[in-house]
């Protein structure tokens, strides 16, 4: 006993030892998700070298990821300011329905339908924001309430799918490939993510959003108008939901009730995967994008390997718990030291 402690004392006293376990855990907490993504790509590529590892399939993955990435990026903003938005999926469904309704039922031109749809999206976000900041309802309750109401409102607007009277030009928005044979939604995603990244990292309002999420009291005393910042985040989330809803209807060529509801869970999974990427528990756009890619690569790979569809939710839930759990453990270990 004594002998052993003496020898350890001798070996550690000379140079400052590197704590490999701690370094490893820190690495895992920051780069674990990216490492996992690369690992998945390598795995699927080796299992299905021709079908998975091909330009066409990668474009397919990116295209599938686009709509999730847009809605998830908006959701990221609400989480950055320390709030929640559970209505984004329902809002996307609702807007996807009314945008084609505007064209089919009301006979509006495409551009007006889209502009109106986006305005409705922003308004929904601002309603969420008002309920949370002014009425001070817990964000989970407020946004869930608004989301639930939207499903009913959608049903009142059109109980049946809208599939007629939709101009070809509208479906072409997401179906055509304007540049290099890359599907259009990928460009929309790239542009929106870039803008949101710039706002979050290179503008006053983005810095203020981060401050509000980090410490709301400190943000107030620093002269930040906290409620306005939160309204901005909710408004952005609404706008992004509206864009995803519109693109989805364009992709499907129809408006269907509840068609985008499932994006809520995907978006949350992606955003939380992202919070464990590169940073320790902070929500950010690049992380969200990595999270979306992990989900998209996973779904695509599983489908190509012929896994039954019921493996998808198992994969989604499992990877979320694994990633978030891993980063939480690593963070706690790093903090306790």
């Amino acid at each position, binding site marked *: 006993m004594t002998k052993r402690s003496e020898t350890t004392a001798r070996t*550690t006293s000379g140079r400052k030892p590197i704590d490999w376990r701690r370094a490893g855990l820190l690495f895992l907490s920051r780069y674990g998700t990216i490492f996992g993504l690369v690992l998945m790509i390598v795995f699927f590529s080796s299992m299905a070298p021709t079908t998975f590892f091909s330009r066409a399939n990668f474009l397919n993955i990116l295209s599938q990821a686009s709509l999730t990435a847009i809605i998830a990026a908006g959701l990221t903003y609400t989480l950055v300011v320390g709030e929640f938005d559970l209505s984004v999926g329902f809002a996307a469904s609702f807007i996807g329905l009314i945008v084609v309704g505007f064209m089919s039922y009301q006979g509006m031109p495409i551009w007006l339908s889209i502009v109106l749809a986006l305005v409705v999206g922003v308004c929904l976000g601002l309603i969420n924001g008002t309920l949370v900041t002014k009425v001070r309802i817990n964000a989970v309750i407020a946004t869930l309430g608004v989301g639930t109401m939207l499903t009913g409102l959608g049903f009142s607007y059109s109980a049946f799918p809208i599939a007629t009277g939709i101009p070809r030009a509208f479906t072409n928005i997401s179906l055509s490939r304007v540049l290099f044979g890359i599907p259009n939604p990928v460009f929309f995603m790239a542009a929106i993510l870039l803008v949101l990244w710039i706002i979050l990292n*290179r*503008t006053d309002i983005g810095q203020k959003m981060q401050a509000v999420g980090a410490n709301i009291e400190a943000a*107030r*005393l620093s002269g930040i108008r906290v409620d306005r910042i939160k309204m901005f985040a909710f408004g952005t989330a609404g706008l992004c939901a509206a864009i995803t809803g519109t693109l989805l209807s364009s992709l499907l060529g129809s408006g269907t009730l509840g068609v985008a509801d499932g994006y809520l869970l995907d978006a949350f999974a992606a955003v939380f995967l992202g919070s464990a990427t590169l940073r320790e528990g902070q929500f950010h756009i690049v992380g969200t994008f990595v999270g979306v890619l992990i989900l998209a690569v996973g779904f695509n790979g599983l489908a190509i390997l012929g896994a039954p569809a019921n493996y998808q939710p198992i994969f989604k839930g499992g990877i979320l718990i694994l990633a978030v759990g891993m980063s939480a453990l690593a963070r706690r270990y790093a903090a306790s030291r």
Partner: protein
Amino acid sequence: MLGTTQKSETSAFGGSMDARSPAGWMEIRGLTKSFAGELALDAADLDIARGEVHGLVGANGAGKSTLIRCLAGVTMPDRGRITIGGAELRQGSPQASEQAGLAFIHQELNLVPHFSALQNMLLGVRKATRFGLIDWKRSGIRARAAAKRVGIQFPLETPVSELSVAERWLVMIGKALALDANLIAMDEPTASLSEPESEKLFAIIRDLSRHGVAILYVSHRLEEVLDLCDRITVLRDGRIVDQALRGRLDKKGLVRAIIGHDIRAPEDREHFAANRSQQPIFSVRDVAWRSAVKGVSFDVFPGEVLALGGLIGAGRTELARLVAGVHRPDSGHFELHGQRIAVANEAEAVETGIALVPEERRSQGLMLDYSVDFNINIASLATFRNFSSLPFVSPAKGRRRAEGLVDRLGIKTPSIDAKIASLSGGNQQKALIARWLGAGIRLLILDEPSRGVDVGAREEIHGTIRALARSGVGIILISSDVEELAIVADRVLVMREGRLTGELAGRDITEARIIELSYHSADNAEREQRDQA
């Protein structure tokens, strides 16, 4: 420089290194811990006798918390042994530490607010049951006995949220006793207590000590430590640099041991006497708010460090928050440079040039997960725009400002990209002050700026405050530390129970006078008598 290796050597500061009692009940030998290659604790040897009140002092980052965390079992030391009553303590296990009779009371007092005092005392204790349900009556027997021992007067059924800070301390001590603690480590126990409350706590500590319970007393308040402790251990840079029995060390020697050099004696300093015929920078006129502030008026003149003295709960923090726009006064108003202002919220206050460095540094000031750079610049983002009309900010401009301020205030950080949470309390506080420098600020309110800050950093913060005042920024300094007021303030307004009770200027600012005005006045003495009856 100090002889720590040879036991028999008398240290440079009057303490004797062989003050280590050979009859240690607890023996710590060669305790070493490093974090990321930095030695936080370097081969610390320490003995604590049964019933001893042992003071542990040192600057922030000197290793006090690491030592205590090792004792508590929440940090695993790299090396070293701890024996208690001859039995070796299993390290890195909070349960083992608790079973060995060690109890820890942190400044934050880990109590569940809406639980009763009794429920809190029984947290983590195996409770007696009856038919499988908790039998509160039987479970509470030991807790009630412990409550009696520490002199708890209030019913134990009271929710902790309704108790004062002092009463919460009693609950924590009672809890430790109910768990049969032989040693209670207390971290800055008097930081949030008033003088009479502190006195009561000291009486309890002395009583515990007589009954064989050792106290490890950690505090920045050196007079207290000198007065209360049987033995004092000084840590600096992770090493035990001095150990002295009571009476073998005076305050000057203690300060020197802590920081390694002398500080300027307060009597030597010059007082700035503001020209009272000038227009004041800031005026408070008959401001009242709820029951906390009852009609207060005063002026802040250019060049002076104006301080608000008094006890905790005198209404000073509330007044500061009124000025900063957190609350709106019920009556009265403020004037900035002679112009009446009405601010509706914190943002408007900041826009008019009024800022508050709050009392609660961590919960109200810092964005702990973010960098020093982010924390320093968050209030002046608009000045980093590439084009003033566009919202885009240039990170490079921000970095230049942050780097300049880190240099100017001597903020010790590996880089401006380091997380602010990794800095010591004093450096965090400097960063919070830096947030407002050069940000067009006209009035800066500092609420307890040196609480939990070590002696060296405190002196630097005082220098910064003084320099700001001389440069024409209005300063309102709030401090419950009378010694600090005597060192740094040019004029002191003493507040008691929401009212101003006196004004001291220049050489009249002495600890004795401030204390007198704070609570030794006629009606306060009356109240004390009432409390005792």
